[in-house]
């Protein structure tokens, strides 16, 4: 009964989306207020219906309703409740439903917070949102119905893939989707602007908070996915340039570019067509990211089950959305009035450079991901592209980007003086040199890693110096600095945090990649191993059986390591090897201790049958900085989001705020 209600709710949501897609858009075209106003209640109604469908599916999972095919395939009565809930989106059909739900939430948010938008723009934005929803709901209902029944119902389900029975991966898809879907708002605004034929500073101001929110979620989502791979896969790595990782990274690169180019539109009334194009491309890449793993085009570990019929439907959907919007762009964008010329050395010049480099970086990843397909089409040769390609192509693009990133915020709008700025960055130069020397002293080479460490220090100090310069830290009394800091727009604080966070993350990525130490051997209980100055004592192994009372739906082999340094206890690590009996599938749980400067990472392998166990121990210098850096970046985004200028729900004060902000910037 409940699954049928869910199914009907989904059908009703599609009907609402059709109305929301047609009536307000037509109203905006003909200038009819009543028709345009329909957009708001229908956005709410759509959220209601999609949420009903989503919770109906969740109900089926929680109550283990094995008359529903999807529940049979992805659940089991003995699974802990939390994974029954997260199992809802641990599969193709359910994750599509989650996608649509988040789309509806964003749509309703635009309806709720968009009271200060011109009515025609709001109507068009919500109509475009409804077009997207129509596509996805159709896809869901016709090819991926999550409410399909099965008769006779089996006695029990087949359980969720054990790799997905994990909190990191349970939260990863919702975060990622909030990022992907969040960019749909920027897309809808772009399409609406093309339809209206007008892009101005106000438009950029409306687009930025949504882009920023999506960017925060996507940053968090990608970091969460990398973190999961790090502790769950047990190889001590966190990023593998797998197609599925790449497709989430591309919208991030484009979204980051969009975030910056929207500033130019807002401040200088330029780069309009480019910004519109970026908004379209960012969401297009999000769509490709959602779909490519479901289409059977590229196969990957994380991919959902694929099906050629679905793939064809997906391609049509992509062609309409991406092709249609780019065609609209080709037709309407030339009419947008172009802004003035730029001086190369200026804030906007730096932002153009940022956009250029980010786009090239994104194109590199795109090419690497899809090149096997292109090559196969031409020559029939089938190849795979791995990390060496990316370290040769992606890193050289990122290096100048990071180098310029420290400079950009110092530059003035319109025209600036590069030598003057470089003069203010003396301390950052010193820090970069110190970082290089320190790394050289501690580790030696390789040269590229030394350069990357220097760049990270350069960027970190550059970001801090710019911030310190604005609040005149140490140039005036501390009280005055504090007052200035309080008056500084939140967006400025946010930028400093985000840039500094990236610097920290880069240091972590570089150090853990270049100077990782690793030991593998068979150890017997009581034996010791030295790695990077730490002594690991293998205390032995305990076996644990399935225990429903404790929520263990797996058997576990848990090893204990006592880690000491100079005779002092550092940590007790308990890496596990689990076996999930329903799917007869093993997983590893790494035992990790972080010192803040490095991760001590242990994995337990198989027994050699003679009392010894294969153990694998990694020393990962600065690895925790990756997560810290990502967190600081997200924090920076959120601080920036709380800036009054961008606050979506503050219509009355908005007019005054830009003046204040401009004054503070001047």
């Amino acid at each position, binding site marked *: 009964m409940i699954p049928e209600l869910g199914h009907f709710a989904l059908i009703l949501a599609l009907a609402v989306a059709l109305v929301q897609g047609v009536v307000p858009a037509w109203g905006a075209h003909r200038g009819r207020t009543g028709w345009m106003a329909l957009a708001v209640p229908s956005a709410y109604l759509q959220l209601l219906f999609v949420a009903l469908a989503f919770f109906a599916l969740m109900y089926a999972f929680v109550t283990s309703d094995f008359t529903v095919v999807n529940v049979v395939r992805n659940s089991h009565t003995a699974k802990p409740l939390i994974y029954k809930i997260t199992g809802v989106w641990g599969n193709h059909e359910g994750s599509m439903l989650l996608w649509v739900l988040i789309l509806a939430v964003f749509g309703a948010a635009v309806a709720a917070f968009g009271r200060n938008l011109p009515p025609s723009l709001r109507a068009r934005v919500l109509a475009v949102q409804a077009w997207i929803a129509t596509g996805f709901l159709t896809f869901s209902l016709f090819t991926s119905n999550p409410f399909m029944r099965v008769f006779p119902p089996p006695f029990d389900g087949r359980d969720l893939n054990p790799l997905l029975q994990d909190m990191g991966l349970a939260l990863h898809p919702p975060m990622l989707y909030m990022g992907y879907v969040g960019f749909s708002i920027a897309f809808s605004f772009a399409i609406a602007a093309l339809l209206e034929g007008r892009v101005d500073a106000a438009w950029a101001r409306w687009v930025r908070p949504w882009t920023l929110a999506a960017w925060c979620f996507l940053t968090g989502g990608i970091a969460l996915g990398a973190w999961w791979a790090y502790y769950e*896969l047990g190889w001590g790595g966190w990023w*593998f340039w*797998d197609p599925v990782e790449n497709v989430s990274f591309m919208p991030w690169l484009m979204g980051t570019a969009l975030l910056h180019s929207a500033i130019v539109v807002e401040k200088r009334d*330029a*780069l309009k*067509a480019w910004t519109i*194009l970026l908004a*379209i*491309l960012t969401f*297009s890449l999000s769509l490709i990211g959602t779909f490519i793993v479901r*289409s*059977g*085009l590229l*196969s990957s*570990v994380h991919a959902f089950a694929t099906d*050629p019929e679905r*793939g*064809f439907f997906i*391609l049509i959907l*992509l*062609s309409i959305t*991406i*092709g249609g919007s*780019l*065609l609209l*762009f*080709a037709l309407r*964008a*030339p009419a947008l009035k*172009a*802004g003035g*010329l*730029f001086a190369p050395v200026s804030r906007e010049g730096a932002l153009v450079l940022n956009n250029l480099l980010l786009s090239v970086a994104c194109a590199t990843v795109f090419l690497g991901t*899809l090149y*096997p*397909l*292109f090559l*196969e*089409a031409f020559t*029939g040769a*089938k*190849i*795979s592209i*791995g*990390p060496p390609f990316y370290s040769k192509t992606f890193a050289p693009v990122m290096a100048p980007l990071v180098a310029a990133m420290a400079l950009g915020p110092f530059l003035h709008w319109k025209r600036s003086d590069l030598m003057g700025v470089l003069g203010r960055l003396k301390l950052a130069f010193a820090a970069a040199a110190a970082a290089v020397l320190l790394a050289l002293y501690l580790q030696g080479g390789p040269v590229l890693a030394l350069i990357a460490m220097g760049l990270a220090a350069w960027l970190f100090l550059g970001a801090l110096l710019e911030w310190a310069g604005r609040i005149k830290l140490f140039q005036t009394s501390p009280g005055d600095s504090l007052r200035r800091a309080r008056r500084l727009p939140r967006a400025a604080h946010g930028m400093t945090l985000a840039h500094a966070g990236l610097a920290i993350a880069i240091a972590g990525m570089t150090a853990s990649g270049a100077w990782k130490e*690793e030991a*593998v051997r*068979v150890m017997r209980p009581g034996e010791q191993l030295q790695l990077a100055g730490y002594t690991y004592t293998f205390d032995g192994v305990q076996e644990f059986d399935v225990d429903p009372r404790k929520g263990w739906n797996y058997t576990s082999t848990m090893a204990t390591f006592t880690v000491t340094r100079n005779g002092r206890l550092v940590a007790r690590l308990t890496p596990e090897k689990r076996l999930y009996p329903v799917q*007869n*599938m*093993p997983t590893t749980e790494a035992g990790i201790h972080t010192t803040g400067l490095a991760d001590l990472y242990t*994995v337990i*392998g*198989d027994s050699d049958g003679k009392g010894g166990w*294969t153990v*694998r121990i990694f020393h990962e210098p600065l690895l925790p900085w990756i997560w810290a850096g990502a967190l600081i970046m997200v924090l920076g985004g959120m601080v920036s989001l709380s800036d009054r200028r961008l606050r979506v729900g503050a219509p009355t004060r908005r007019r005054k705020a830009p003046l204040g902000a401009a004054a503070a910037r001047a």
Partner: protein
Amino acid sequence: MAAESPASKLPQRLLYLVPVLIFAVIASYFLWGLNPERDPRAVPSVMIDKPVPEFDLPPIEGMAGPGLGSADLRTGEVTLVNFFASWCLPCRAEHKFLTMLAEKMGVRLVGINYKNKALEARTWLAELGNPYQAIGADVNGRVGIDWGVYGLPETFIVDGTGRIRYRHVGAVDAYVMTEVILPLVRELSR
């Protein structure tokens, strides 16, 4: 950004068409890629029922064993040839099933370690166990190219005379193991 003059109007308009044209090209690749005839799980027809390409690979550096050559695939016994590497995530997932095939079901399994550093490969095998009767190290991927390997893991079924009879692209799972590989191995062994 560009200066506005009547002469530059048309080329400029064309410039705006570039994104949609690029997308059209990409989409047509996608369309081609979705063609049901192109099954990434199928052998290119030139390879099936052909003898295995000639090769002779050394063992993984630092490991005992004879290595692997095409002569080892003409022993009269049906053999599974599995391309694997420690950097390949699905290889890890299929390892259990390959082990089961080799140890519980008596299928002859040999491995080709593809574009892998010796230390990493040894570590991987030490951690997960080594179900392979023999392993050849294809360090530069040359042999993989001859076999038409396109993404790891790939598993070939070679009959007793050294002809490729089946190719499976992607991880071997419970279904592929019991419903595809085992029946075919049994049939070819008769």
